[in-house]
């Protein structure tokens, strides 16, 4: 194969890959739409499940109910999030192959995944241990959720290129609720307003989900012609 043929082949394969990446943004945006609704529902349960559980009189059964329900919520939400993030990661890897093959670093991706799981387990232990009522607990909670929010922002940017409005709204409201709720706990020494400050995030994430699912087709407006690469 001579140099010209190699160049032609390279251009062809890049063209196909670029088209596939552009077409896949429709599927990615839809997957993000499902992600928003799963977490909106999970945050809702996380906050308001404490009310019915609070009616349980026996201490150890109440603690068991707290731990079981929170672990189940986090497990299912994380499982579905993992599916969305793995799709996004595979798309990002293809994008890297198309432009900067030397920057491919799958080990880094695995490391972040493991770190997130460790942090998630730490967060569950933190919530169940009652440490959340102390300043150190609040600081740890804000840092962990801030890290999660930043990770979601990075994945949105990498998988969708330009982050759509609903993604920006979702990330911003999450950060607002995270910091706002922590401030109220520190100021009022009570978690009375903590729940209320997460309500806007639940609403915005549900709306973001609907908007994202409804507008996923916008990604196909400038759909490339399938025959162009031939």
């Amino acid at each position, binding site marked *: 194969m001579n140099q010209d043929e*190699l160049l032609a082949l390279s251009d062809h394969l890049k063209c196909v890959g670029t088209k596939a990446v552009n077409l896949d943004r429709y599927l990615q945006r839809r997957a993000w739409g499902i992600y928003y609704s799963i977490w909106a529902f999970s945050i809702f349960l996380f906050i308001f499940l404490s009310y019915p559980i609070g009616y349980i009189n026996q201490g150890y059964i109440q603690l068991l109910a707290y731990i079981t329900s929170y672990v189940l919520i986090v497990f299912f939400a994380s499982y579905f999030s993992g599916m969305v993030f793995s799709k996004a990661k595979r798309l990002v890897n293809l994008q890297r192959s198309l432009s900067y093959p030397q920057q491919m670093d799958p080990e880094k991706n695995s490391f972040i995944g493991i770190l997130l799981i460790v942090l998630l387990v730490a967060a569950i232990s933190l919530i169940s241990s009652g440490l959340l009522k102390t300043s150190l607990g609040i600081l740890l909670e804000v840092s962990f959720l801030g890290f999660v929010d930043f990770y979601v922002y990075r994945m949105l940017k990498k998988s969708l290129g330009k982050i759509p409005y609903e993604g920006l709204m979702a990330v911003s409201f999450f950060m607002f609720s995270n910091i706002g709720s922590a401030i109220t706990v520190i100021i009022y020494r009570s978690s009375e307003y903590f729940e209320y400050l997460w309500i806007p995030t639940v609403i915005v994430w549900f709306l973001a989900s609907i908007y994202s699912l409804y507008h996923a087709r916008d990604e196909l407006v400038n759909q490339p012609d399938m025959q162009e690469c031939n």
Partner: protein
Amino acid sequence: MILTVKPVDSAGSNSQSLNDLLEILGKQLNEPVMKSTARLIIIISLAINRKLSFTDLLTITSLGKGSLSNHLDKLQKNGLIKIKTVFKQNGPRVSIEITENGLDAYRNYSSLLRELTGLK
């Protein structure tokens, strides 16, 4: 015919390995690589999403139903995908899954792409 070839190691980055990769990928797609844009895009999309519905593939490829079915048939005959009918509340739905051979074809495509990008 089911091909069970493994992707070539990127260390062998020379014209011969490129030709080998091209030949393997061409056989996997049942057509020369330069002529199978649609099939390659289907394989790439399935490699990223692992499983897609027929409607999803129709939407992203903008091919006609007959043309898409034809491409999917060829890919299935080569063992790159599995086509299943799934019964849902609103009727039967066709689900397309990538197989391990399909993932190998995608890895071959990625290796080829990386080697060619590295040559530039």
